[in-house]
């Protein structure tokens, strides 16, 4: 990480302008306070100053002396600063300080400081983790930070788009391995739109059949078995490899009333769960989240 300082001509430009300004400042301050007496009062007042109301005249006496000390202090400070820190063109300063180096040094020992915690989590079984209140609170915090914007602060899903993670219904499977796969790889569900190929009537039939799944004689049943069973299963229990949800139960992601189901069939659905790589969720955090969700 190299500090991005001006180089070549512009470095010299900065140095010269800075030094000339400082020198001018010193000269002005010194001559205001320590100019020879003639140019200071008599000369100025007699020659130049207008007099109003017989004795009211413009004085040119120097400002109070404590100002002088303050200005001197500021000058000394700036010289010290310009020596220690980057400021004079490409000169990096005697301390060799830069924002980038400060960031790097604050990362020293940062990862190591988590080693003990991470090792503990790696060595603990999922069921033991689930029994550890302190660690499960950590898991809740991670969940609130990374997942709650979509799945809701309590994980119960929201917006008829983001699934409830605390129920027994798993689209992609609820085993630790399957949850890990969901998180590391992300999930892209694809439910085709049906109305164009099935037509209005069959679409209505099959939608109604979903609401009366146990009705073996329903008009929508053949439509279902011909078109839907490949993914959702003949018995409607779904398929975790495709993320095809269980349609035979009473849990619905996109809504279980007839209008929502019809909307699903008309427009199709493509739920997308983003992938969480090592940077967003390290191995220990991932394990904690799995312990929180798996049952």
């Amino acid at each position, binding site marked *: 990480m190299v500090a991005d300082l001006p180089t070549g001509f512009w470095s010299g430009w900065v140095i010269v302008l800075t030094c000339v300004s400082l020198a001018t400042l010193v000269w002005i301050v010194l001559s205001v306070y320590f100019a020879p007496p003639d140019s200071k009062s008599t000369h100025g007042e007699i020659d130049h100053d207008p007099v109003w109301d017989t004795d009211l005249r413009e004085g040119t006496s120097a400002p109070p002396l404590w100002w002088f000390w303050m200005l001197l202090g500021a000058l000394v400070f700036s010289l010290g600063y310009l020596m220690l820190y980057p400021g004079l063109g490409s000169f990096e300063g005697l301390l060799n300080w830069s924002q980038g180096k400060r960031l790097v040094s604050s990362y020293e020992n*940062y990862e190591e400081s988590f080693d003990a915690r991470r090792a503990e989590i790696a060595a603990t079984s999922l069921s033991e983790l689930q029994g550890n209140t302190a660690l499960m609170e950590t898991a809740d915090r991670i969940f609130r930070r990374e997942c709650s914007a979509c799945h809701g*602060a309590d994980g119960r899903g929201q917006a008829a788009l983001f699934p409830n993670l605390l129920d027994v219904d798993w689209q992609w499977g609820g085993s630790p391995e399957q949850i890990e796969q969901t998180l590391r790889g992300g999930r892209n569900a694809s439910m085709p739109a049906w109305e164009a190929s099935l037509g209005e009537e069959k679409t209505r039939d099959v939608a109604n059949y979903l609401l009366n799944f146990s009705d073996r004689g329903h008009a929508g049943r053949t439509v279902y078995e011909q078109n839907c069973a490949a993914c959702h299963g003949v018995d409607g229990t779904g398929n975790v490899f495709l993320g095809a949800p269980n349609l035979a139960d009473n849990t619905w992601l996109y809504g279980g009333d007839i209008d929502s189901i019809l909307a699903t069939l008309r427009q199709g659905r493509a739920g997308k769960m*983003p992938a969480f790589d090592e940077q967003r969720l390290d191995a220990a955090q991932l394990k904690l989240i799995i312990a929180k969700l798996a049952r």
Partner: protein
Amino acid sequence: MSALSLHKKIEENTGLLIFGILLVSAIGGLVQILPVLNQKSLEEPTVNTKPYSAIELTGRDIYMREGCSVCHSQQIRPLIAEVERYGPYSRAGEFVYDRPFMWGSKRTGPDLHRIGGKYTDDWHRIHLIDPRTVVPESIMPGYPWLAERAASETGNIVAKMTALRKLGHPYTDAQIAAAESDLEGLMEIDALTAYLQILGTGLDEEIAR
């Protein structure tokens, strides 16, 4: 000559006074701004920084128009707390195609520089229409009209891209010619979402730690 007699001369001569004031107030800019304008290393785009597409550019204009930068910054500072929260700190080369940049100066909501890819398009759509649908305690205002207005009505995209090309953004003729059809059928909310999804994705994987 002492400073006092110089002072007297300047005070009695308006032209000299004006010149002196201009000179003194220019020094800061001459030292801090002029050299930076000539610092090539700051103009070099980072590996994956590309000029905004017609859709993203329109989204950026909507971002400006709606004043999102009043509450959101787009600059992650090189401090451990920010890097841990938002991701790699912002590099100068990521902003070369931002005219003007949307760094902002106030964080009522979180920084958005690395928002690209954090959420899905669906999430942004719901959140922009009414943030409280997904973040119940949010104080961000909803922008429901973005879903009702056509993206093509947000200014003249061809003129914008042509003007930016004059300023050095490497758009091809084909890109500019296709700009209007790119926007066809899209709503403002789609363009804004496309812009949000590209934000902060300009870094090389390696730098992105």
